[in-house]
């Protein structure tokens, strides 16, 4: 018998943010921001290694990043970093049982106690703080 993956929807199912509310959007943003930050981190390690080429090599590489596009990418990185941090703390607290409500018998309409207003506020706060941090970053980078 041919082997079939349990995860039949694949990447399409994983990145679909619909049907499950803001928690599902947070799940997607957490993964996207995580992957984005890992890509930036690897790029940053490579970028900083250009200092080994001396002042000329450092300045040349820095010129590539000190452009409007470079600043825009850095602003997105700041937003990803803040969202990932704030939402990550929310997830950690949730895993530790903080703010997820008390265990109770599942009664109609079967609303999960863990998906409550406190955690929704945490997600919206993460999005707002990410936007504010991005704007602050843009002000610092373009203000000079």
């Amino acid at each position, binding site marked *: 018998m041919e082997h079939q993956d349990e*995860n039949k929807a694949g*990447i399409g199912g994983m990145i679909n943010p619909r049907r499950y509310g803001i928690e599902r959007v947070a799940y997607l943003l957490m993964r996207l921001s*995580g992957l984005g930050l890992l890509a930036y981190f690897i790029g940053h390690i*490579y970028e900083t290694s250009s200092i080994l080429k001396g002042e000329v090599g450092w300045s040349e590489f820095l010129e590539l990043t000190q452009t409007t596009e470079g600043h825009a990418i850095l602003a997105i990185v700041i937003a990803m970093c803040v969202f990932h941090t704030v939402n990550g703390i929310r997830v950690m607290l949730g895993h530790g049982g903080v703010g997820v409500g008390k265990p109770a018998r599942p009664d109609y309409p079967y609303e999960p106690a863990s998906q409550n207003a406190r955690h929704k506020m945490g997600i919206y706060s993460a999005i707002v703080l990410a936007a504010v941090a991005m704007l602050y970053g843009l002000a610092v980078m373009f203000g000079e």
Partner: protein
Amino acid sequence: MRESIIMKIHYGTALAAVALVAVHVLMRLTQGFAESLEYQNVIANYKFLPYAGMLEIILILLSIHGFNGLRVILLELKQGRAYEKAVSYGCVAAMIGLIAYGSRTILMVNMGMI
């Protein structure tokens, strides 16, 4: 290693990295952003041993957290004994490679080998 222990490491590295990255970013803002990235300033940062040590710790913490996060995402996507082993060992190898590459920069600049 048990997944519960791996997740504790994942969360521990995250919390430690948040604190240290905040210091790293604040160092850029103590001077002007562009000024702090001037060659001489960056060299001085690397030669200041406590700061170089902090960069090394950030490198290790973020590499562990980042590649474990990637491993978790890839394991959510697909399962299977061979696939899971390949993903886990691949992420550990990439993590070691990145730590080695970043440490090389920190050590060489700190020891004045440029």
